[in-house]
């Protein structure tokens, strides 16, 4: 299964969904799209507007590939479960977000370089990258998220200090 999500942002990101819909007939895998607040409704894939976050997590876990805007929630989940992700950042110039911070996130991820993270900056590149990822069909063993462990420890230490005071 391929899970496609454009997040909780109220701004339209039909650009990605329309592209996915147009290439869906050429993709052998089932595609499920969470359309969010975007207006375009796919004709060639299963879709819904929103599911509760726990269900969305299950969709991500069950997927061989996730296609997404550069949204933090989805990126975190794919990292946690070792799922390949293709990211197309929302752009300010198309009214898809308030600013271009999704470009910054995408470029930073690209710079960090993870075998599972595929950034595209134009939707025209989508079909080629989907086919490449599906050809390899390899799922990473999730690696320990050191940043997360450090954050949890730092927060916990602060709370424990507060309790003793």
């Amino acid at each position, binding site marked *: 299964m391929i899970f496609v999500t454009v*997040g*909780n*942002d109220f701004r339209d990101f039909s650009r990605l969904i329309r592209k996915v819909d147009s290439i869906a007939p050429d993709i052998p895998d089932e595609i499920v799209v969470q359309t969010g607040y975007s207006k375009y409704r796919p004709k060639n894939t299963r879709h819904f*507007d*929103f*599911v*509760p*976050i726990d269900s*969305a997590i299950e969709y991500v876990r069950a997927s061989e590939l996730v296609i997404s805007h550069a*949204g*933090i*929630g*989805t*990126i*975190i*989940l794919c*990292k*946690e479960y070792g799922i390949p992700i293709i990211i197309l950042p929302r752009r300010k110039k198309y009214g898809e977000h308030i*600013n271009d*911070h*999704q470009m*910054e*996130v995408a470029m*930073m*991820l690209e710079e960090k370089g993870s075998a599972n993270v595929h950034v595209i900056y134009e939707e025209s590149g989508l079909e080629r990258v989907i086919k490449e990822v599906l050809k390899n069909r390899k799922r990473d063993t999730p690696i320990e*998220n*050191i*940043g*997360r*462990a*450090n*954050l*949890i*420890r*730092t*927060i*916990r230490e*602060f*709370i424990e200090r*507060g*309790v003793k005071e």
Partner: protein
Amino acid sequence: MEKKSKIGLICSAGGHFAEMLQLWEAFEGYSVFLVTYREKTTVNRKNTYYLGNIVRSPFAFVVGLIKILWIFVKERPDILFSTGSEIAIPSFYFGKFLFGAKLIYLECSAQVYQSSLTGRWVYPITDLFLVQWEPLLNQYGSKAKYVGGLI
């Protein structure tokens, strides 16, 4: 006897919510409650209070503020933790000045080089202020800390 801290977790829906779930382990063993926006993605959670999005209208803003006050009167939080976004601003100011709560803020990992509006609002009153990218440190004062990021 050791006092049991009550921790209020504050976040809007979407990525902020996902970041909160990632850090849940930090609060294990403590009594916690969550304040978030009522969205299809956040429904039916335990120990959770829901607000309408406070930036949707001036009316929603006022109603949201009253609701946050009511929740805090009921829950009496000792510590507040937020992953953003703007829902943290009234929560932190009420929590600090009316309830004497300690404040922990984690700037969203979407902020790579630029500080968020929420971050700038809560920075002066926050006790533990964390960012998720090193380049962001120079947008804040010496209180800001970087120990790692979620993505």
